[in-house]
């Protein structure tokens, strides 16, 4: 499944970031690389918000739909 499909309060682990270019590298540099564990904080409208090792990141919906995750 993709990150934008994860429900609020569910945890997941990143398997792969699809697509390329700058956004992918930026995600990697912020620690959103394969294996990273996330918790969905908010997923209703606009960018999603995830929590990752204590910090919160807002990620655009389009980008979040390119992040492949597996549920924990």
């Amino acid at each position, binding site marked *: 499944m993709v990150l934008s499909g994860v429900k609020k309060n569910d945890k997941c682990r990143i398997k792969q970031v699809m697509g390329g270019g700058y956004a992918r590298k930026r995600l990697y540099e912020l620690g959103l690389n394969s294996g990273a564990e996330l918790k969905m904080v908010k997923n209703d409208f*606009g960018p999603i*918000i995830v929590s990752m*090792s204590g910090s*919160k990141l807002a990620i655009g919906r389009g*980008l979040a739909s390119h992040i492949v995750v597996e549920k924990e």
Partner: protein
Amino acid sequence: MQNIALVGNPNSGKTTLFNVLTGSNQHVGNWPGVTVEKKEGSFKHKGALYNVVDLPGTYSLGAYSEDELVARDFIVKGNPDVVINVVDATNLERNLYLTTQLLEMGANVVVALNMMDEAESKQIMISTKDLSEALGVPVISTVAAKKKGIQELIDGTLKAMNQEPRKIVFTYGKEIDEEISKIRDLLKDESLPYPDDWTALKLLEGDQEMLSIVEKMDQVKTHLKSLQADNVDYELDIVDKRYAYVNGITKKCVVKPAEEIVTATDKIDRILTSRLFGLPIFGLIMYLVFQLTFVVGSDILGGYVETAIEIFGEFVEGWLVSVGSPDWLVSFVIEGFVGGVGAVLVFVPLIMVLYFFLAILEDTGYMSRAAYIMDGIMRAVGLHGKTFISMIVGFGCNVPGIMATRTLENKKDRMIAILINPFMSCGARLPIYLVFIAAFFPNNGGLVLFIIYALGIGMALLMGKLFSKTLFKGESSHFIMELPPYRLPSPTSVLRDMWEKVWDFVKRAGTVIFAVVALLWVMSVLPMGVEPYSQESILGRVGQFIAPLFAPAGFGTWQASVSLFAGIAAKEAVVAVLGMVYAGVSEGSELVNAIRDSFTTLSAVSFLVMTLLYTPCAAVIATVKKETNSYKWAAFMAIYPFVLAWSLAVLVYQIGSLMGF
């Protein structure tokens, strides 16, 4: 003097630490050639003076933004004796990613493990001793906001200053390591601005700056091309390896609670970013900011300043006359200087209050929520959510507003953000509204002000939409933004922030505005023998020449025209000129009365529309030139808002007249 550089992620408390270290011994400038702000300061310790440079906050040291380039350039070429890496203890993994990059560069690093109190309240336990051993550099725990651990940090820094940094040998796995050494060998005989192995590493990461440096080195280029042909791309692998290294370290030194603790931030965010309440609350906050700015800044404090300037003016006039000064000197000092510059200074309290609230919004962490909330609306008009932050900064002054667009990585997003920023009404335009509000809407000041600002935002969004459909087509880049935890704003940092801006405003009043006012005064008394500030003066003639242009908008008087003309030099000059030409001396109430006599309510409204939207001041146009590196865009920035403002002002006046206002 020895140099210390401060590096860290955004929101790591780097600037707070800088303020604690240097106190009031600091100055703000620009890095040469770029518009990135450079903060420098110094502190004394045991009689020796140390220079501290606050590098821009970054997550990484790539070549993606000017901020990153400036930071890494200084670390490599500026030869700092020590690099203090400010690390947010509540988010060690991501912060240490930057640390690994500093170590790769061979910098002499001292880690300030900041916000230890917040980490403790989240039950995150970090062993500084283990962390220091694992990283091979000194680690000192601090709470910059509470001035804890500062002495230890200074001691550790000075101790590190006299030691060679321990060379860390990184491994990125056999394959990448071999590739690095291959490229390094090819670079051996070239003269490079950076260390060989670091350049090699960055080339494998696809770093644009490095690629342009090796552009003429055929051997290296051929090799990189062959890698590309074989589809070898290590860019993300290298990032992964760094994180693997960091995770290895944090496993050894950090103990975290099994279940993340629900913080106050989480609870507040549930409301402030909620679908239902997020936007209305944001609107309410902005409305309150403007109401308070108006009430406290203008109604309460503004009056005192006005009285003070009046008394000062009378005193100076009395003194000048008593010592037998010639009439022209009295006229220049009282009407030109006290009148013109004074008309601007009256608004210092107001600017102060506005900046005070903007600094609080920034300091508490609300600003990034505003960008988040606005992303939906911004995206609907083809803009990036972060554009909104540059727009809010523009409320203070469009120059930093345009600079703030640098956080937009996509060229298209950035160009649009730059071109629409001047519609965000800056602090210098505020005095114009206030004079007109006092004359025509004395009972609804806050509301009218809110409408003016909202019109500016609306126009910015509209033009944004237009530009994204015409001049800059294509997808807007992705939204990725950190939402830092809410923090109580630190009074010192809010006041310092406010003071810096206010002082800037005062300095401008004393220099640029004074020069403009002096020039206008000269224009108003020449040619010799004319009635000063009359239609026959040069000033009057210039105004008369332009005036017909504004007749369809209802303010085709030479006075209004010449004030708009002066406003292109600096927006503050609009009120200064109105003061000179209408009141002779611009003591507040006299000017207000004169304006009430010379404008109708309708022409006042169309004049406000004009001043809100027309050509930005010279400083903004110069900034656009600098940021876009193009005279074409600078010229565009000067012309299109004028056309737009004029058309709208005419529309307002003509329709209003038809409707019988």
